């Protein structure tokens, strides 16, 4: 496996009430091409902040992040973020045009037809083929997140960044969307960095889990997750892994 992303000696401060608060303390890690990497940690551990640095929404105070040996300085199409916010679709565009719009704006695809085909392909991948003409407010939370994933995938980014995208959905929907992410990964072999605070989600999805600590946010350990797929949370190997990760988090 080849390395696609490298985070080197990264630290980040927030200024709050004239006090310098260390949120990320000396983060070092790499991401391999084609893997699903989960960043797991309690709220306030800076995992979303870290993802924002990778996306380029925010810059590290110390250290750097390199994508394919180039330092990241701003958001770009090669890293697309899917947010937790259920309102990340544009309400004034229907599902199809939410996906087509960024393609059109970046002149991806040679013709209108080609862009529509592309959008349709990814909407089918997230099983929204029957909802092209729906407006976001007519969709359920899970469908909105699926549309947002299709929009991100259509751009064909090198890395898909996911910031607790299923955090505000109920457990059944979350489980089915996790299956969908694995399904998409098997079809596209895309690199995914997935931030979550849910141990089960991290174990279900990941090849590796970066376990983080809070105050300040730092990496506790990086766990290789080689459980055979499909993974089922009632398997004994799954619960062993769960215990291992849980104990690490609690330490």
């Amino acid at each position, binding site marked *: 496996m080849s390395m696609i992303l490298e985070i080197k000696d990264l630290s980040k401060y927030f200024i709050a009430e004239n006090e310098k608060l260390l949120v990320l303390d000396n983060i070092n890690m790499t991401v391999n091409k084609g893997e699903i990497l989960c960043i797991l940690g309690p709220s306030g551990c800076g995992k979303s902040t870290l993802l924002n640095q990778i*996306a*380029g*929404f925010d810059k590290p105070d110390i250290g750097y992040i390199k994508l394919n040996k180039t330092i990241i300085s*701003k*958001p*770009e*199409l090669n*890293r*697309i*973020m899917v*947010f937790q*916010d259920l*309102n*990340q679709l*544009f*309400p*004034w*565009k229907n599902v199809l045009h939410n996906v087509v*719009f*960024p393609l059109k*704006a*970046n002149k991806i695809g040679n013709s209108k037809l080609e862009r529509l085909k592309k959008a349709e392909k990814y909407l089918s991948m997230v099983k929204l083929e029957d909802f092209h003409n729906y*407006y*976001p*407010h*007519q969709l359920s939370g899970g469908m909105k997140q699926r549309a947002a994933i299709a929009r991100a995938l259509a*751009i064909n980014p090198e890395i898909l960044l996911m910031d607790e995208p299923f955090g505000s959905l109920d457990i059944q929907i979350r489980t089915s969307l996790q299956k969908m992410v694995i399904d998409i990964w098997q079809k596209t072999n895309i690199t995914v960095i997935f931030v979550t605070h849910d141990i089960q989600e991290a174990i279900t999805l990941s090849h590796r889990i970066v376990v983080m600590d809070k105050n300040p946010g730092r990496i506790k350990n990086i766990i290789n997750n080689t459980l055979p797929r499909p993974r089922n949370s009632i398997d004994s190997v799954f619960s062993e892994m769960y215990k291992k990760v849980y104990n690490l988090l609690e330490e």
Partner: protein
Amino acid sequence: MKNNLLGKRYLVRIFWILILGIIWESIALSGRFSPLIFPSVQNVIESLFKSIISGEIIGETLYSLNLICKSLFIGIIIAMVLSILSVRSKVFEGLVETLIAIAHPLPGIALLPLIILWLGTGSSAIVFIIVHSVVWPMVLNLSTGFKSIPNIYKQLGDNYELGLFEIIRHILIPASFPYFLAGVKIGWARAWRALISAEMVFGAAGGIGGLGWFIFKKRVFMDTAGIYSGLIVIVLIGILVEDMLFNKLEKATVKKWGMSI
């Protein structure tokens, strides 16, 4: 189903208008009041038709509508410039807020003597009054609209590498559209009131006036039925704009998008 409901609403309206008309007519026919104060429905309608056929009321309605469209257009442009400036710069924000605090509570009519001194009594004075009554509430609405645009759209714009044109055309304008529309609705209502009052005071500029002038003329000639016919036209235009224009526009945009404020 929806059409049925809408149709039903109109039926209910027409029903009550008929009832009120009948009550009106019976009071008029009872002869308790002089027809100079209380003309019969028949007289009012006759008078309305006469002024339509002679073209008098049509010309004056068009004159009023022309003035109001012009002024609304100018008002919207000024409001947009002011609200964009106030959203983009802290210095302008303070200035615009101060201007609103001073100008918003001032009824346009109160400015009349000043405006006559500045601009005379021509149509530009009327335009000025309308623009004044439209701009301030619109600036309030538009800047609230711009400020309420969620930060996530900015992040999406950055992430998907959208250009300035795409951001303005496809994000800023539609995202603030519900506020824009609300502003235009308030603007229209205020403009319409300001226009009629200003026209009554100024009368005709250069031999031609608007609906306010029409009503004023009718009062001078003690043509009470004529006054009512002017009022009917004002009400009808108000209903038409509200039901046809604004409701249709809302259905095609903010309601369709689920973005009502």
